[in-house]
């Protein structure tokens, strides 16, 4: 079945083709044709991805991986990255999610973006994004991965600033691009280090060669792993580079769903999972990942509690959920991290899309305090949103999020790299998650209707929502925990590419106890959210004095923006302001000025006065004589 795997290059090529067609001729097409091309190319890609997946599963290629070289990118002094794609379980899962969820979101946006200008531009960017994302996950060397990496960053920039006429959107887009670029540059430096150490950037070669070249815990391994982590932190909006993601919500909702929830922001997870050998060699960095994940999920969870903009809540919850994935990676539970990514892609894009439908219906209203009562008016959106919210809050048994998230929480404790503190963070985060999630649900769909519905979503919006909603419920059944019969094809499948988690010696009963606590607190969170929703005075009683200041602090995302603004942005701007005309210029200007001044001075001596000249001669003669005689 090798010939089917040969179709691999079509995956990114089709969206690229769509992009080129739309970018060059887009303005001449009708909206129907644009949607057809934009959605169609991604749809075919998704189809091919499924076919490839089936063929991979039925006829697993030798070595559990397959690679396809298109051409050698360049070859300099033995360093020769090529344009080639690499398929293994990890990239297959990412491919599937990218194309499939991507296709659903494209489909959705065929309707939601129909109003307003730039339809062709929108689909062109989206197609380019899918292409870049596929290049990222399929790349067989890190340089090509970096190409995809920057490509998705670019598309994110373009799509956040899609409504370019608003200066704020442009600023948000710029911020996203620059903050991630800081991470990217770290990653690039990491690549230099890898080139220096290995002379190649081929992933497989590095993974197999690393243990021989770098010793466990050596400083090179530390820096290599650390620098790559920097890239991952930027892209995945993890502490301390998380500040760009909430602002990135300035883009259209499907963009948030696709880029800032399902795919691009999880590129960091992919990178770390892909390069897991390096992290095994650098335990300090791996611990750092776990801590960063834990810190991020707490920080973002608390911030999400205080937001009123529905998309900002979802943005913070995305940061928080990716924090879980990082936590999983950090404790060595790679496949759990990927599993959570897999599930998260469904329910978070679903939440964004439903929220987008709500926003569309209410005439661009983002504030959840002004929504309400939509349960009856928009039943489809309500139910799908509820499924997504349930999965996000990890409500027990029925939702997919339960299986993926609880696995991580468990491993945070039980893995030999885990600890009680990590578990506490993960557990606390889960509790907060269910509070803010259901706060959002109650405000949006229950109670009085506060804003008129101005648009009723059609089928192109509803069908993707329903598909994603179903997946949010059932996708978790591909991986059941041990006490439910240990049915885990997902992690088995992944374990051919990623190492299994190694457990510390923990009693089996502990798992059950911890799990029960989890479930209880998830439900408790829902109850608390309901209490606060029912009795708003409860909230306002908290909003006094220190409480108010605290909530403000959380609302502004722990003031990270403020700090960065004062520490980095303002000094840089100030520096460029004071030296706009370049002080070097002044030096040369000074030389020129001095000459002009001397010219003027000498000019003045030429006054035509004979006696003045004579004096000059006489003084000159005296000086000359003195010099000759006495020196």
């Amino acid at each position, binding site marked *: 079945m090798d010939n089917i795997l040969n179709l691999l290059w079509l995956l990114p090529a089709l969206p690229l083709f769509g992009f080129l067609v739309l970018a060059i001729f887009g303005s001449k097409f009708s909206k129907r044709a644009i949607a057809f091309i934009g959605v169609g190319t991604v749809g075919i890609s998704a189809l091919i991805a499924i076919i490839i997946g089936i063929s991979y599963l039925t006829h697993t290629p030798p070595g559990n991986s397959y690679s396809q070289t298109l051409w050698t990118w360049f070859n300099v002094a033995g360093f020769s990255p090529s344009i080639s794609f690499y398929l293994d379980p990890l990239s297959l899962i990412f491919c599937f999610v990218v194309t499939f969820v991507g296709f659903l979101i494209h489909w959705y946006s065929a309707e939601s973006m129909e109003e307003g200008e730039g339809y062709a531009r929108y689909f062109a960017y989206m197609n380019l994004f899918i292409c870049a994302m596929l290049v990222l996950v399929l790349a067989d060397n890190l340089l090509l991965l970096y190409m995809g990496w920057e490509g998705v960053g670019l598309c994110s920039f373009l799509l956040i600033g899609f409504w370019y006429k608003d200066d704020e959107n442009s600023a948000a887009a710029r911020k996203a691009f620059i903050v991630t670029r800081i991470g990217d540059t770290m990653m690039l430096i990491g690549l230099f280090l890898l080139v220096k150490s290995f002379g190649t950037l081929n992933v497989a070669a590095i993974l197999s060669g690393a243990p021989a070249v770098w010793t466990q815990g050596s400083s090179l391994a530390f820096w290599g792993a650390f620098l790559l982590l920097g890239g991952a932190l930027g892209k995945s909006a993890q502490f301390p580079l998380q500040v760009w993601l909430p602002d990135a919500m300035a883009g259209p909702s499907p963009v948030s769903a696709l880029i800032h929830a399902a795919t691009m922001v999880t590129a960091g997870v992919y990178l770390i999972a892909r390069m897991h050998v390096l992290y095994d060699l650098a335990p300090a960095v791996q611990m750092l990942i776990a801590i960063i994940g834990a810190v991020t999920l707490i920080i973002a969870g608390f911030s999400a509690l205080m937001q009123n903009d529905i998309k900002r809540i979802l943005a913070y919850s995305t940061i928080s959920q990716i924090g879980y994935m990082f936590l999983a990676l950090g404790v060595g539970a790679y496949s759990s991290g990927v599993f959570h990514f897999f599930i998260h892609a469904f329910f978070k894009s679903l939440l964004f899309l439903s929220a987008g439908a709500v926003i569309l219906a209410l005439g661009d209203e983002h504030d959840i305090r002004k929504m309400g009562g939509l349960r009856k008016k928009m039943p489809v959106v309500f139910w799908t949103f509820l499924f997504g919210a349930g999965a996000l809050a990890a409500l027990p048994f029925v939702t997919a999020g339960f299986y993926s998230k609880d696995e991580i929480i468990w491993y945070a404790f039980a893995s030999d790299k885990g600890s009680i503190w990590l578990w506490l963070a993960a557990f606390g985060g889960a509790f907060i998650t269910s509070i803010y999630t259901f706060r959002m649900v109650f405000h949006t769909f229950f109670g009085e209707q506060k804003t008129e519905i101005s648009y009723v979503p059609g089928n192109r919006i509803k069908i993707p929502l329903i598909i994603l909603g179903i997946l949010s419920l059932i996708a978790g059944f591909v991986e059941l925990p041990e006490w439910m019969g240990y049915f885990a094809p997902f992690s088995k499948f992944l374990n051919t590419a990623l190492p299994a988690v190694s457990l510390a010696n923990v009693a089996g009963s502990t798992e059950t106890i911890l799990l029960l606590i989890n479930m209880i607190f998830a439900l408790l969170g829902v109850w608390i959210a309901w209490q606060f929703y029912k009795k708003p005075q409860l909230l306002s009683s908290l909003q006094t004095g220190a409480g108010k200041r605290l909530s403000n602090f959380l609302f502004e995302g722990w003031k990270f923006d403020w700090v960065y603004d004062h520490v980095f942005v303002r000094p840089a701007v100030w520096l460029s302001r004071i030296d706009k005309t370049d002080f070097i210029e002044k030096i040369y200007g000074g030389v020129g000025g001095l000459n002009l001044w001397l010219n003027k001075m000498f000019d003045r001596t030429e*006054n*035509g*006065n*004979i*006696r003045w*000249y*004579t*004096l000059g001669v*006489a003084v000159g003669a005296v000086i000359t004589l003195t010099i000759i005689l006495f020196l």
Partner: protein
Amino acid sequence: MVTVSMNTGLLLASILFLIGLVGVLTRRNILFILMSIEIMLNATGLAFIVAGAHWLQADGQVMFLFILAMAAAEVALGLALILQMHRQHKTLDSNVLNLLKD
């Protein structure tokens, strides 16, 4: 015959030269400047004579003859120029006559 020592002669010459120089620098009337220049020339001539006498060489006197000739020519030319200048500008003040400026 009274012998004059070389030092005395040179001293006299330099005093004369200085008087001439001060005259050139301080006088504003071109005529006086010209006269001062004559004094300076003569001072130079005197120095030559003294030196020539000291080393018993004729060169000093030869040089003096040259200077005399040059001074005569200079006076002739200078006076002619001054006359012309006076005719054109109605003044001999060197501060006013700063035509060399341009």
